[in-house]
C-alpha cells in the first residue's frame, strides 16, 4: 500500500459559508448581495444536497394577506410547535416577520410558492388554531437556489467537508477535507456561517444496523455543532430529544403531506381530530403525539395505519402532487412497483429514532456566542422556513461583520491544518482497525441503550464511560480506505463529540419536562422554568450552565 500524503491548498474569502442547504445558500446569497466575497463549501453538491435535497412542500410563514394584520397568534402557534419553552419568543417573532419576504423572494426566483395562484395553508394544524404552514412546490428548490447563488458571484466548492474552525485570532476560517481527492483545504475568512444541518446517525435508525435508512439526510451528522463546540461556542438544549414519524421501516419525513386518518387495526381513529381524509388538516394527532405509533406497538394496540381510504379524487391528486414536491419519490416509485393504491391500502406508520432538538446557540441575528461565527438552519432545529430565513439574516450579518475587520494573518490556521493533516493521514495509512461503520454502530447502541427513551443517572454514568472509551478507540484506530470513507470517519468523530455533550446535558437536567424523560426524576423542576441549558467545551470535557431563556 502506498503511503498517502495529503496535499494542501489555500482559499480566501470575506464570508465562508459551510453547508449548501437552503440555509447556507440563502446566507451566501445575502452576503454576496451585500458586497462580500463569499465562498460556500458543501460536502456533496449543492444542487441536491441536504435534507431539502429533492424537495419540500411546506414552509412556515406569516402572510398578512392570508392571516390578517395580527402576527401574534401565528407566532404563538409556531413557538408551541417548536417546543417554545426551549427558545425565546423574540426569535420566533423575527422569523415570522421575515418569512413573507423570503416567500416572495423564492417565488420570484421560480420556486412555486402558490397553489393554483393563491396562498394555500394546510397540514400540521389543529382545527380552530391558526394555520402556519404554506404549501409550496419545492421539488426544484435546490437547483434554483444554487443558480441564484452563482448568479451573485458566490464561489461554490463542492465535495469538501469542513472539519475544524480556525480560531487563531478570533474566527478566521475553517479547514476542510476533500471527499474525492487526497487534499486538505484551508479556507481563510473574516466571518463564518455554519449551516451543516441536523444530527442524523446518532441513534439507530428503524432498520437495525442500516445507517442510511433515515427520515432526514444521513449526510447531516452534527458537523457544525461539533466544530462550533470544539472552537468554544455554546450549544444549547442538546438533551432535548426530538422524534419524527412516518411510514414504517421506509424512513422519510413528510407525514403532513399524507391526507388520511390515523387508525388502529379495527379502523378506529386514534385521534379526535378527523374521521375522514381532510387535506386541510391532515391528521394532526401525530403532531401533538409523535410517540403515538411506538406506544401503540408497545401496548399491543397497534399497528397504527395512515388510512387514506375514502379520499376524494381531488384531494388524492393534491396529495400525490405534494408528495412529489416533498421529495417522497422513493415511496411513489414503490407504490407503482408494488401496486399499492392509497385509496385502498392503509400504510403502517411508526415513530422514528431520536435525535437532539438542540444545537448551536444562535440568536435572532444568527450570531453564535463567538464573534464572527454565525449559524443557521438545522444547526438548531427549525425546518426549512427557519433555515431560509435565518440563513438570509445570518448571511447579511456575517457580511457586515467581515467589512469591519481585517483579513486574518497569512499564518492563521497553519497549526490546525497540520493537526488535521496528521489525523487524516493516520486514518488513511492505517491498515487494521475499525471502519467508520463499526464505530457508528457502537455509538448507536450506546446512545439508544443508555440515553434512549429511558434516562437515569446510573445509565448516563455507565454510558458516558462507554462513550469515552469508544471515542478514544476511534481517534486511535479508525481506518479509512479512501477519501469517501475518511469523510465518514470524520463524521463519526463529530457525532462522538455531539454525543458527549448530550450525555453531559442529560446528566445536568435532573427533571422530566414534556418529551424529556428522566425515570429517576419524574417531575418538572420549577427551578428550570424559563431556563435553557447551555454546554461548552471545558478543559476536561463539556461544561454546562443554566441560562435565562432570553439571554
Amino acid at each position, binding site marked *: 500500500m502506498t503511503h498517502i500524503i495529503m496535499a494542501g491548498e489555500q482559499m480566501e474569502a470575506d464570508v465562508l459559508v459551510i453547508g449548501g442547504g437552503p440555509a447556507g445558500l440563502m446566507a451566501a446569497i445575502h452576503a454576496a448581495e451585500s458586497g462580500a466575497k463569499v465562498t460556500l463549501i458543501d*460536502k*456533496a*453538491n449543492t*444542487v*441536491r*444536497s*441536504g435534507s431539502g*435535497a*429533492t424537495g419540500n412542500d411546506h414552509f412556515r410563514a406569516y402572510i398578512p394577506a392570508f392571516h390578517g394584520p395580527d402576527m401574534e397568534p401565528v407566532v404563538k402557534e409556531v413557538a408551541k410547535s417548536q417546543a417554545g419553552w426551549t427558545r425565546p419568543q423574540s426569535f420566533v417573532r423575527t422569523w415570522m416577520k421575515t418569512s413573507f419576504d423570503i416567500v416572495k423572494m423564492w417565488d420570484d426566483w421560480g420556486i412555486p410558492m402558490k397553489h393554483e395562484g393563491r396562498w394555500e395553508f394546510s397540514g400540521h394544524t389543529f382545527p380552530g388554531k391558526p394555520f402556519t404552514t404554506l404549501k409550496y412546490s419545492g421539488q426544484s428548490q435546490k437547483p434554483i437556489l444554487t443558480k441564484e447563488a452563482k448568479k451573485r458571484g458566490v464561489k461554490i466548492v463542492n*465535495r469538501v467537508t469542513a472539519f475544524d474552525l480556525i480560531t487563531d485570532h478570533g474566527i478566521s476560517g475553517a479547514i476542510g477535507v476533500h*471527499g*474525492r481527492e487526497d487534499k486538505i483545504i484551508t479556507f481563510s475568512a473574516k466571518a463564518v456561517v455554519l449551516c451543516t444541518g441536523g444530527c442524523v446517525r446518532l441513534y439507530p435508525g428503524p*432498520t437495525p444496523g*442500516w*445507517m*442510511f*435508512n*433515515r427520515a432526514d*439526510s*444521513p*449526510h447531516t451528522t452534527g458537523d457544525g455543532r461539533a466544530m462550533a463546540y470544539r472552537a468554544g461556542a455554546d450549544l444549547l438544549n442538546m438533551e432535548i430529544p426530538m422524534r419524527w414519524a412516518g*411510514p*414504517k*421501516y*421506509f*424512513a422519510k419525513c413528510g407525514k403532513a403531506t399524507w391526507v388520511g386518518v390515523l387508525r388502529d387495526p379495527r379502523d378506529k381513529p386514534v385521534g379526535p381530530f378527523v374521521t375522514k381524509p381532510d387535506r386541510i388538516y391532515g391528521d394532526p394527532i401525530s403532531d401533538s403525539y409523535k410517540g403515538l405509533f411506538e406506544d401503540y406497538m408497545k401496548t399491543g394496540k397497534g*399497528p397504527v*395505519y395512515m388510512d387514506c381510504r375514502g379520499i376524494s379524487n381531488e384531494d388524492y391528486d393534491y396529495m400525490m402532487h405534494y408528495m412529489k414536491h416533498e*421529495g417522497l*419519490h*422513493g*415511496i411513489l*416509485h*414503490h*407504490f407503482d*412497483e*408494488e401496486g*399499492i*393504491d392509497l385509496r*385502498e*391500502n*392503509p*400504510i*403502517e406508520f411508526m415513530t422514528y429514532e431520536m435525535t437532539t432538538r438542540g444545537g448551536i446557540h444562535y440568536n435572532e441575528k444568527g450570531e453564535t456566542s463567538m464573534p464572527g461565527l454565525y449559524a443557521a438552519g438545522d444547526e438548531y432545529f427549525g425546518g426549512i422556513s427557519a433555515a431560509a430565513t435565518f440563513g438570509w439574516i445570518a448571511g447579511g450579518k456575517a457580511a457586515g461583520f467581515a467589512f469591519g475587520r481585517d483579513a486574518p494573518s497569512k499564518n492563521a490556521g497553519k497549526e490546525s491544518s497540520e493537526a488535521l493533516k496528521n489525523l487524516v493521514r493516520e486514518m488513511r495509512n492505517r491498515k487494521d482497525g475499525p471502519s467508520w461503520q463499526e464505530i457508528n454502530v457502537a455509538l448507536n447502541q450506546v446512545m439508544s441503550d443508555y440515553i434512549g427513551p429511558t434516562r437515569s443517572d446510573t445509565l448516563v454514568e455507565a454510558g458516558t464511560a462507554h462513550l469515552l472509551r469508544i471515542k478514544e478507540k476511534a481517534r486511535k484506530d479508525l481506518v479509512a480506505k*479512501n477519501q*469517501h470513507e475518511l469523510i465518514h470517519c470524520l463524521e463519526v468523530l463529530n457525532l462522538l463529540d455531539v454525543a458527549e455533550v448530550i450525555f453531559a446535558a442529560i446528566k445536568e437536567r435532573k427533571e422530566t419536562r414534556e418529551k424529556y424523560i428522566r425515570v429517576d426524576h419524574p417531575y418538572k423542576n420549577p427551578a428550570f422554568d424559563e431556563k435553557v441549558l447551555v454546554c461548552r467545551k471545558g478543559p476536561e470535557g463539556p461544561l454546562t450552565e443554566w441560562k435565562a431563556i432570553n439571554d
Partner: protein
Amino acid sequence: MPPIIDEDKCTLCGNCVDICTEDVFFGSKKKQLPRVTYPHECVYCNACVEECPAEGAVRLRLPLPMMLMYKPAPTA
C-alpha cells in the same frame, strides 16, 4: 443494491456521479459507466434519477427491509 444502471441506456454523462449527495458512485471515472461503489449508502432520494438525461438509465431498487407495510384491500 440500488441504484442500478442500465448499460444500454446510460449515456456516460456523469450527472449521477456529480449529483449524488452520499457519493454512492465514488471512484467512478469520467466518460465511463458509473460504478455503484457504496450501494448501502443510497437513501432513495431520487436525485440521480431526476438529473439523468436518459429515461430509465438509472433506477433505484428499494431494499426489502424498507418495503412499505401496507394493509391489503379486502378481496372481493
